[in-house]
């Protein structure tokens, strides 16, 4: 049943109820109210089609990546390489730059633009080395009082033999633990795909923003469909069921704000997308500047400890 049909069906049931000759003591109003509420929610909610459009735009090959934003938002950019132990992970870029005259640390995922670069950067999927590198650079920020900006755009952490052997799970856990210790303002923005543990590993921030057409989810639509529907082709249905779009993430309190994109999506105008993102980052930064280091850490933990819905 399409969403329109569903709405029509609800409306019909609702008008049917209001026409019922009411017996004394009959409780139809409760049912009518419930249907009204359902209808109101249906109209406000992002439709399944819109959710899938977000999935497609979030993965658009022309969408700006971390370094596209860095180049447009920051002056004096210095990229820092390597985890000081094993490797320099191309899927995770880190560095220091100046945002309107203020030094900030940037960490972010980088997908590649062409085939060669994509392979070199593992399609934006970091190895544990990438998370170790991010931790190293975030700690520099904490040491010198530089705010941390994290730009998330990954399908997930790299699912490979070496990644497992090098401790993917532990690296993701420790990256989050590092982030809840940082005594400086931290802002994350999901700028494309926020895929599962690999994304949340660098998104445990005071402010978590999400671009209008970004997605943030516990698993890829394909992965979810393969497990729950036993068919990766049902990705669209899976996405409609677990709702990875910005609107729903905001409603659930998982993100604090939605960053607008140019009409048609960030891929249509990189400069404008960068201008909008920079404005949102500056605004969040200004809010967070009022808070001292201890309170930042305390509030950050309180925020994430409050997440979830249970009975």
């Amino acid at each position, binding site marked *: *049943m*399409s*969403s329109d049909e*569903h709405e029509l*069906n609800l409306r019909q049931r609702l008008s049917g109820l209001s026409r019922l000759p009411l017996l004394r003591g009959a409780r139809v109003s409760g049912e009518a109210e419930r249907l009204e509420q359902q209808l109101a929610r249906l109209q406000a909610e992002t439709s*399944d089609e819109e959710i899938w459009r977000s999935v497609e735009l979030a993965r658009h090959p022309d969408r700006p990546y971390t370094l596209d934003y860095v180049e447009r938002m920051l002056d004096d950019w210095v990229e820092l390489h390597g985890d000081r132990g094993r490797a320099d992970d191309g899927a995770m870029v880190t560095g220091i730059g100046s945002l309107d005259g203020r030094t900030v640390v940037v960490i972010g995922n980088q997908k590649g633009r062409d085939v060669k670069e994509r392979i070199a950067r593992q399609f934006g999927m970091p190895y544990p080395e990438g998370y170790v590198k991010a931790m190293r650079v975030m700690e520099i920020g904490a040491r010198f009082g530089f705010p941390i900006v994290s730009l998330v755009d990954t399908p997930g*952490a790299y*699912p*490979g*033999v070496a*990644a*497992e*052997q090098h*401790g*993917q*799970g*532990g690296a*993701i*856990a*420790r990256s*989050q*633990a590092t*982030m*809840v*210790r940082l005594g400086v303002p931290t802002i994350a923005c999901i700028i494309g795909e926020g895929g*599962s*543990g690999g994304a*949340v590993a660098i998104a*445990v921030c005071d402010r978590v923003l999400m671009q209008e057409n970004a997605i*943030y*989810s*516990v*698993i890829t639509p394909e*992965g*979810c469909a393969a*497990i*729950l*529907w*036993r*068919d990766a082709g*049902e990705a669209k*249905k*899976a996405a*409609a*069921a*677990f*709702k*990875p779009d910005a609107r*729903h993430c905001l409603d*659930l309190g*998982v993100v604090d704000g939605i960053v607008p994109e140019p009409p048609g999506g960030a891929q249509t105008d990189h400069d404008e997308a960068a201008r909008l993102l920079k404005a949102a980052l500056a605004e969040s930064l200004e809010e967070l500047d009022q808070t001292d280091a201890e309170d930042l850490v305390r509030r*950050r*933990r309180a925020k*994430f*400890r409050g*997440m*979830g*819905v*249970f*009975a």
Partner: protein
Amino acid sequence: MTEARIDVQVEHRHAPPVEQKHPNTCPKCGSHYRDDELDAALWVCGHCGHHFPMRARARIAWYADPGSFVEEAAGVRSDDPLEFFDLRPYAERLAEAELNTGLGEAIVVGQAAMDGHPVQLAVMDFAFMGGSMGSAVGEKLSRACDAAVERSVPLVAVTSSGGARMQEGILSLMQLPKTVCAIEDLHEARVPLFVVMAHPTTAGVLASFASLGDVTIAEPGALIAFTGPRVVQQTTREKLPDDFGLAEQNLRFGHLDAIVPRADQRAYLLRLLRLFAPA
């Protein structure tokens, strides 16, 4: 939401043929046991040493001094914020899991004593929806951390989980940072965390509190991986080593302090409890 419902035929069309093996038949050597035999042997195959999954309550009964366990946060239950519907409604899966396991959620927490040492226990149960971590599991684990801090007693966490509970969408992912925050508070209060990884400890649970123990041990043969072998094989087409993701490989690569057979775990934990006991 009706439009999210789909034809149940899909389940038949795509379901792989499932080989039904009795849960009490050892998958390694084929020995078969009665429930009471396995119970008496701590659910370890007497012939080949294979560790069968051990239910949370049975493990608590084995770790804790008789009569010392007091369950806490038992009333915390999962909700269904997304009204999630795959082949069946999430609410139905939850009710079924509760009926089949006699548990309210995939983790049991509470206070106990081990050989007289007061401890906080948080034990996961794979039988409840694959030990998956949704909001209720995250909350119960966090409360166990707080209780351990409040009483200033070590937390012993036993993990067995397929990862975050997909049916709760993004909120299940948020249980990673939530539990990490709870563990950070525990670390800062200088309360020890001992993690026992049982088969399987994967994905979201491995990528959060399970990996943050002061001392971390695993059961022999347990799968401990962020991404399981099937998905690694499918996505990368890499040739997998024979012991890919197993506890033995994790030990070799430095991710574990020890592999401790179930029968020795109580003594191992007691040694830690003595060493970490306040002077």
